[in-house]
């Protein structure tokens, strides 16, 4: 599915969400008995999810010749993982490291900025009545339904006129919009911020900005982390827009860089480097998976509390 232009997410918010932020059912009495059969059945889906990742991991340990001669799901006689990682980072004067840093830049500024805008916007939608409010969300959803591939060239022409193409801004600015993030924060803020707390802050004479930063923002933390992770995935995996916007490989994100390595094998005189493409792919997904694992407590509570119940 196309998630190139950020998470394409669309839905209606709940009409009157009951403001309940329940803790998970940890204290449920009478813990159900565990079932081996159910575990095995669900295990099928687990294997399905893991198999390609295992294949990638195993493939990254193989040399170019090893890839050609060995069974896909088992190791070759040479174990080249460390060597492959080393080569990945030194090939073409270490451009992979540069791509990694670029991606980090895009994620920090792009996903960070997207999260910030979504938090601000979601807070506004949840806690304020303002003219044009209904129109805002309707328009956001409508625009999201138009395929991003078709908007790419008009966006390029516009950005080009503004002198933004071939600069990091061409990747960052479009990443700043996450409609799904906006929706998530809207629902989350509606529930997470008790109205009385805001009123109390106002009565104390706090400005709107102060109320937001000191009262609302801390309460929004779990939702913020959730949105951050989703925007991170979108930015980290962004491919199509950078492909149009960037010509200079020095500004490529990892996805585009890997793609260019992969395409090397398809041109006259190009050097085929499948082992580096595979190792690079592995290195590309590892940080993201690590981030998910490390932050899982936060984002899962954010998702449960805010996202998707009626």
């Amino acid at each position, binding site marked *: 599915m196309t998630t190139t232009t950020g998470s394409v997410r669309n839905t209606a918010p709940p009409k009157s969400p009951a403001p309940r932020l329940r803790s998970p059912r940890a204290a449920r009495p009478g813990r159900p008995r565990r079932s081996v059969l159910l575990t095995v059945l669900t295990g099928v889906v687990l294997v399905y999810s893991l198999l390609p990742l295992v294949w990638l991991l195993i493939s990254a340990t193989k040399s*170019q*010749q090893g*890839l*050609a*001669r060995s069974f896909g799901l088992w190791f070759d006689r040479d174990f080249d993982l460390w060597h492959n990682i080393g080569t990945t980072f030194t090939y073409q004067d270490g451009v992979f490291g540069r791509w990694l840093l670029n991606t980090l830049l895009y994620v920090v500024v792009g996903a960070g900025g997207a999260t910030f805008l979504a938090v601000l916007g979601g807070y506004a939608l949840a806690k304020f009545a303002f003219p044009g409010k209904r129109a805002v969300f309707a328009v956001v959803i409508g625009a999201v339904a138009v395929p991003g591939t078709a908007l790419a*060239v008009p966006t*390029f*022409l516009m950005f*080009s*006129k503004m*002198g933004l*193409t*071939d600069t990091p801004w061409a990747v960052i600015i479009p990443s700043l919009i996450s409609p799904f993030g906006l929706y998530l924060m809207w629902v989350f803020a509606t529930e997470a911020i008790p109205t009385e707390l805001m009123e109390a802050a106002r009565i104390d004479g706090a400005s709107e900005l102060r109320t937001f930063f000191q009262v609302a923002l801390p309460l929004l933390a779990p939702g913020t982390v959730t949105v951050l992770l989703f925007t991170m995935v979108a930015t980290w995996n962004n491919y199509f827009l950078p*492909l*149009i916007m960037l*010509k*200079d*490989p020095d500004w490529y994100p990892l996805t585009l860089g890997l793609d*260019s390595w992969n*395409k090397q*094998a*398809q*041109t*006259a*005189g*190009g*050097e*085929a480097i*499948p082992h580096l493409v595979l190792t690079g792919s592995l290195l590309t997904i590892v940080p993201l998976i690590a981030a998910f694992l490390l932050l899982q407590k936060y984002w899962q509570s954010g998702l449960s509390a805010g996202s998707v119940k009626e």
Partner: protein
Amino acid sequence: MPKHSRRLLRGLGLVCALALGATACGGSDDDSGDKKVGSSDIQSALKKGGTVTVWAWEPTLKQVAADFEKKYPKVDIKLVNAGTNNDQYKALSNAISAKKGVPDVAQIEYYALGQYALTKQITDLKAYGAEKLASSYSPGPWNSVKSGDGVYGLPMDSGPMALFYNKKVFDKYKIAVPTTWDEYVEAARTLHKADPKAYITSDVGDAGLTTSLLWQAGSHPYKVDGTKVGIDFTDAGAKKYTDTWQQLIDEKLVSPVTGWTDDWYKGLGDGTIATLPTGAWMPANFASGVKGASGDWRVAPMPQWEKGANASSENGGSSLALPELGKNKELAYAFVEYANSGAGVQTRIKNGAFPATTKDLNSPSFQNTEFPYFGGQKANKIFAESAKSVPTDWKYLPYQVYANSIFNDTVGKAYVSSTKLTAGLKSWQDASVKYGTEQGFTVEK
């Protein structure tokens, strides 16, 4: 950078003022067709220096750019890999429509050049004396950079075709190297019978291969005269091709592995894809992509459509061209000439490229180069011979990029269904005619 180039423009202006001929610096004007830029202008531009942005995916240009900068310390060559073929063409078209960020030099494949030339998006290099170089290139590539009476690029490399074959496989099954396409079909049958996993070649439909084979068979499917275009895949040459190739497809004698994929590289390595009729640039790809089969492969002249004939054709290859909206044209041309006709050619040959210049093709050191990958064979002799035997009257459509992009939509059906190759070509023809008409060409059917 903008400041830099503005300074440079002022510098060029000064050069112009000093030059005796008032038209000397017309190169940077849009309508420079008739004006001449002398070599002295180019020399002084080189002394002045400046930046030249080059969009190219050709890997051997890196060294050439470095050498050029060393020779002309004031010139900065900014070599950018803006994507491979179609990706770069789209980027180029985008930049041209935005009138911003257009490179000074762009790599453009021969089959794609016509479109840019026709729409005057690239510069006619006659003004820079490119015509003088006509005799230094082999006929196929030179013919490809010409459009009307203009010269729209300098040939960078060429792909005279040859038959790469896996000698180990051929020896194992005692198959003689085919010299005609009929023998090729026979060899395909013998091989596949002896080893059902092995195929004579792999083909799932490739516009480049088909057009090259038509070219070799003496077919003239495309007629181009300015904006008048004719498309016809039914002449005698085309019939030779379809008759032969239909047998290979019908009897399932070609492997259905798509070219340039991992599987394809593996097939070239393990003997299940036994031959490859392709351009002379292929050895570098063999050496890097099929390392394991070093020593197994050899090169032979292309099988002929008629016994005893000696016809070849070009497959692939690209030129360097100067986009009309690029800057620093004198410098840009100087670089292109250096890379494609001057000292850069040798550098590129050393790094595995296949030249388009006859001098290099015919030089003893080139022809006597032994390829360890091909068991020490002097493969360049075969390639150089092939380059001489390319019919020069071939034309691509002025919108071949689009036509090739829909090749598999149309002709591809012949590989995966009961559709015949001739019917596939017919629907390719119809789709190409439709597009041409939509784009304002006068198309005869």
